[in-house]
């Protein structure tokens, strides 16, 4: 037997087995740059089902970019991204759509469709798929809006909603197709304390219902309340990957600075 062929077939079998059982979302040594500016470099991350994660870092460090890379909205310069165990490099948009079926995202501003009502926004994916009857979709829309406490807003347009209401409608839209993973991009930014409290409670409810969340945020209270695993991004690189307790006791200067901004950083313009 050709040992090289044996080695190849053995590694292929291991890869195939891993693909069959691997339901996680992974980034492996991913780098991305824009216009010559490096955004992230050799970034590794695994999002296991049932273990929610938060990505922390200062503004502009590339946290939102990571979410978009994971969803295939951006293409990395190098590295591999896996959704449900399948590499997404080179996939056509229609193939990516199939993989994204299990994932939803709540964008920072909600990204509600301005020309559609709240009800049409929430039921958007279901209407597009055209599989369910309109009455069935309407029932699902009402159910999801009830979950976020906005069933009375079904006929309003996004322009008529407050910032907090937009985020809640965006969450309802994300839930409509019953995804396993939900990404949140700065879910509590720009909200008043009551809004923050409502969103945090919704995220906790989602975890109780078996959803796995990946959040990028500066809101440490929400992050610590919701997530079990943390990644910290600093100067294009991942400098920390661990649990809540490990993060709190980390001695890395960038993390200590993030938790306790000093006078020096205040006056140096950082």
């Amino acid at each position, binding site marked *: 037997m050709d040992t090289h062929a044996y080695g190849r077939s053995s590694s292929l079998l291991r890869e195939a087995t891993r693909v069959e059982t691997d339901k996680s979302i992974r980034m492996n040594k991913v780098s991305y740059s824009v216009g010559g500016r490096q955004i992230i470099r050799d970034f590794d991350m695994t999002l296991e089902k049932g273990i929610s994660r938060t990505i922390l870092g200062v503004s502009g460090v590339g946290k939102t970019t990571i979410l978009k890379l994971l969803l295939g909205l951006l293409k990395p310069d190098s590295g591999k991204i896996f959704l449900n165990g399948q590499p997404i490099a080179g996939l056509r*948009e229609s193939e990516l*759509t199939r993989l994204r079926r299990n994932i*939803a995202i709540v964008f*920072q501003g909600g*990204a509600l469709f301005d020309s559609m009502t709240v009800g049409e926004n929430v039921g958007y994916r279901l209407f597009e798929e055209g599989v369910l009857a309109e009455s069935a979709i309407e029932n699902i829309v009402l159910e999801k809006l009830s979950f976020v406490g906005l069933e009375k807003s079904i006929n309003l347009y996004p322009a008529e909603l407050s910032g907090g209401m937009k985020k809640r409608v965006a969450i309802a839209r994300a839930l409509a197709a019953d995804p396993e993973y939900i990404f949140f991009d700065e879910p509590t930014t720009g909200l008043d304390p009551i809004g923050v409290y409502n969103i945090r409670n919704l995220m906790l409810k989602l975890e109780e219902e078996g959803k796995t969340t990946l959040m990028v945020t500066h809101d440490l209270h929400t992050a610590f309340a919701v997530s079990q695993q943390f990644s910290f991004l600093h100067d294009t690189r991942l400098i920390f990957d661990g649990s809540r307790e490990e993060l709190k006791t980390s001695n890395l200067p960038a993390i200590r600075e993030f938790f306790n901004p000093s006078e020096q950083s205040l006056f140096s313009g950082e």
Partner: protein
Amino acid sequence: MSATLPERTLKMVILQIQEFFALAARSLIRVFSPPFYYREFATQFEKIGFDSLFIISLTGLFTGMVMALQALIQLKPFAATSSVGSMVAVTMIKELGPVLASLMVAGRVGSAITAEIGTMMVTEQVDAMRVEGTDIIKRLVTPRLKAAVLAMPMLAIVTDAVSLVGGYLIAATYNINPLMYYKSLPRFMVFQDLVEGVVKPAVFGFIIAMISCYVGFSTKGGAEGVGTSAKRAVVLSSVLILVTDFFITKIFIAFR
């Protein structure tokens, strides 16, 4: 060795031209496959077609009046004022009707399309559509493309018709009777001229829709970026309409 500024600029222009043609090709392919987004098409046809009727009618009316005025001044010394209708007709139907109607629509509708898509880009609505499983070219571009290509010839015909009425309003002041004006209309025209008067606006509609959508998708930088894109789309569309008009005219003359 790093590229110089002219090299980088040239590369960027070539890349943008390549991306534009790729978007145009993908949009054309999707015209013939479902889902057809009939409601979206109807909305766009109303915005591009019906909502432009007033402005292109105004354009046609005053252009026809000016054409007639200028023609009558030139024709009067030769006692040839009876030909004013034919001069207005051939100029409007072959050239000014399609071009002016298209320039008006490019300014009014093209900028709106770019602003709408540009706003969707900067507020991540386009990303949200992609994540929700929508083919954004089929949803956002193809309905606008179909609406523009179908509506523009109709708008050009309306512009031509109103311009002929405007021309008569001036001709009447020179005692040209309506029957004489009406009979003179086709004097300098052949059937090919009518075809040209319909083909040109269809091509210009394609240009308006595709340029507006392409520039919309390229928008970056918030509200200011949207404004810059809208301006850029109108300028690009207008220049391309004028350049394309020249080449289409040359082709029709070659086959005359």
